[in-house]
């Protein structure tokens, strides 16, 4: 029975929530308008031909589509902004690099990537060669018996380091909400249970793969039959991972997808070459305030100061300027 609930029902629900939730979030973000082109420029703009731009400027203050893509790739794969991190000390002018956060983040995220690639062996038949190869390389095959996967241990270390930051650094402790700790604890539980299963209380991985393959082709009958024969330790890992999937779309973990949408990074700094049109103000011939804004059923309209209004308000002074033929010169003494 346990096998059926945790091996069949729970993962189906979790994956459904994950897929629907993530798509919902993406559509939800995409549906919000982008009123202005607001890249944060982290380097020299493209301007006059003799003003030289370095390669960094081109990615930090992108002008073309390709440079913008380059900026996003650096951001997503290198965490470029975090790499710029500094720490301010009140007692000195100098700065010190504070790239620990970058290091821990890279350690965690790349370990996660490797772990996920390794896990693809449970979903793919035959197992792709590069997955095998990668696993062998990171395990230094032949050095330890049984082979030790570095990424599996590194991910635990990375998570602990990130969590210790939140516990021991006073500023980060103040900032951290329960949900921040929760996400880290959940990930720790998943990775530690995975390691325990790998090295101490082994589960029958052949069966696990069979279960997953059957789940994937919706052969529920076979899946149910296999599910009950797998060791309970597997379900600890499996249920936690399912829970993470279901939790993902509603949490800050969505930063993984959100980074693609961020207007301060994914827009080029080419405002002066190409006009950006605001979808909810696409014909701005009359300012919105002059048309009036409605709040609580009441409309508030600001009078528009067009030239004619302006001229009628200050006719004498403007005529005086016209009389001098629009020229200002020092007064004759």
């Amino acid at each position, binding site marked *: 029975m346990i096998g059926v609930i945790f091996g069949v029902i729970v993962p189906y629900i979790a994956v459904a929530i994950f897929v629907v939730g993530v798509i919902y979030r993406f559509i939800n973000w995409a549906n919000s308008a982008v009123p202005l082109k607001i890249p*944060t420029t982290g380097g*020299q703009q493209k301007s006059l031909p003799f003003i030289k731009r370095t390669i960094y400027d081109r990615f930090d203050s992108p002008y073309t589509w390709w440079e913008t893509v380059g900026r996003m790739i650096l951001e997503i794969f290198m965490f470029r902004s975090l790499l710029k991190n500094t720490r301010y000390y009140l007692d000195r*002018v100098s700065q010190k690099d504070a790239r620990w956060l970058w290091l821990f983040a890279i350690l965690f995220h790349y370990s996660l990537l490797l772990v996920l690639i390794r896990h693809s062996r449970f979903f793919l038949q035959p197992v792709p060669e590069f997955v095998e190869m990668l696993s062998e390389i990171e395990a230094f095959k032949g050095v330890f018996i049984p082979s030790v996967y570095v990424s599996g241990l590194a991910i635990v270390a990375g998570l602990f380091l990130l969590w210790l930051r939140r516990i021991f650094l006073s500023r980060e402790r*103040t*900032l951290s909400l329960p949900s921040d700790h929760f996400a880290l604890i959940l990930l720790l539980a998943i990775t530690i249970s995975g390691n325990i299963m790998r090295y101490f209380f082994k589960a029958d991985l052949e069966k696990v793969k069979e279960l997953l393959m059957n789940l994937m082709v919706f052969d529920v009958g076979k899946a149910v039959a296999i599910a009950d024969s797998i060791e309970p330790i597997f379900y600890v890992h499996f249920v936690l991972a399912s829970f993470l999937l279901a939790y993902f779309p509603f949490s800050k973990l969505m930063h993984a997808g959100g980074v693609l949408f961020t207007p301060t990074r994914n827009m080029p*700094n080419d405002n002066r070459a190409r006009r950006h049109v605001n979808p909810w103000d696409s014909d701005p011939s009359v300012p919105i305030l002059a048309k009036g804004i409605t709040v609580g059923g009441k409309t508030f309209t600001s009078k528009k100061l067009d030239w004619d209004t302006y001229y009628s308000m200050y006719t004498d*002074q403007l005529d005086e300027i016209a009389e001098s033929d629009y020229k200002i010169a020092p007064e004759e003494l």
Partner: protein
Amino acid sequence: MEEMPEKIEIRQRFPEWREMLKPVKKFEEGRLSYISLPKQVDSEFFKMPFGDVERDLHDLKLPENWKELFLEAMKETLEKNRAFKLFMDICVRCGACADKCHYYIGTGDPKNMPVGRAELIRSVYRRYFTLSGKIFGKWAGARELTEDVVRELYYYAYQCSLCRRCSLFCPYGIDTAEIVWWLRRILSRIGLNQRFMTISIEASARTGNHLGLLPGGMAGAIQQGLEELKDVTGFDLHTYINKKGADVLFVAPSGDYFATPHWFVMLGYLLLFNELEEKYGLTVTWSTYASEGGNFGTFHSYEAAQLLNSKIYKEAERLGVSFIIGGECGHMWRDKHQFINTMNNPPKNEEWKRFWENPDLGELAEGLRGVRFDSYASGEHGWIHILEFTAALIEHKKITLDKSRNDHWAATYHDPCNVARGMGLIEEPRYVLRNVMNKFYEMPEHTIKEKTYCCGAGGGLLADEIMDLRMRGVMPRMMAARHVYKKYGVNILLTPCAIDKAQFPHALEYWKIPIEVGGPMEMVGNALVLTAFGEKPEDRQYDLRGEPLNKEEGE
């Protein structure tokens, strides 16, 4: 006039997360901005919702259904601005932004960390717009919207200068300026506006500029500048105002017409325009109608920014100019680079269209052929920064400069936040400065260029009542200035930003750094040899401040 804080003590506090969700009840002296009066926000030319009531922070006099209105405005914002919605959702609270904020460094107040500031509104977002916030409440970091929360939102929304330094360091590009800007817009929908900025917005909506200068006053100010230039150079110079058929419209922040040290920059503009007209025949006109470059609307809301910057393209069209040059200003260039051509339709006059088909200054004045702007600008925008313009003139050897006239200055350059991070104008000013003066030194690397520290008074925070906050916020910049003052003997801090020029003299006095403040165009004005008037490099006896150039020999 202003009350300077006697002593600044930075007390860092690290409360636990529960306390961060509770609204502060005690507002520090010198950090709380006054709320607008009816004459500013219930004016004919700038009418904001519920602006007809006089309020203060202890008695908000909110409309009866304020909560509904607030949430409605917030919902609208989430739909209208993807950045706002995304930044509500994806922050992981890693803390990378925390010590990047000059106000946090200066005050030590945890809610002044960029992430802390954003959490103030994010917690309300979670409570009313997310499932987990509705179910788990405080455990999901959500909180009820109460009047105390609104007070707190106002208090902290006006402790951010929209400088975007945090956005540079955020791994997701979360821009607190974007959050705060739209939060201020939400607050304005229930009647809460900050007084200092709305004084200027209202004046600009009514008269064309923040100072409320009428046409005669502005013309008079420029005339006085020309008279001063006659004393300095000995030449009869002139300029145009509201002139139809001029080649270029020039728009400066209105501070340049009166304030010091802005004034010397204004003299620099006038010298350059006279040389160009006399030598090449390029005519530049000012306008009394579009007399404001700086746009305090950009501190308030999209709509207010649009109301103020809508005048400029219209004026360009009316006067029939070919393009627009903008003066030295910080936020102005966020507005003029990123906002203005989205918020308005660009001019459609013939001259404009013709020029941008082949944007070579030679089309306007034969002698300037070769100076082109089409590598980055088009007729869909049409603004050129005065320092880009000057840099191009220098590169093409169209103006004659005598660097030695600036030898009495040893300068450093402060990048205005929005010029650096909202535009990317970083090397052009340095190119100009290296060509007009011999002694130019950079401040430490982590305080300049895109990492520049704010002057602590941008974003509408140049108000006198928050002097304590301003003097704290400027501290990182002042420490960097002191460093170059001690190391290189720097005696002037140059910045192309009107708000900087207003803030720094106070700040330098407060932090006891005996150096002057100026703008790059002042240095250009000093170095510029008016060859068209027959001036020789050695002719100039005084700089634009009226100081004799050859002190040692004279004494």
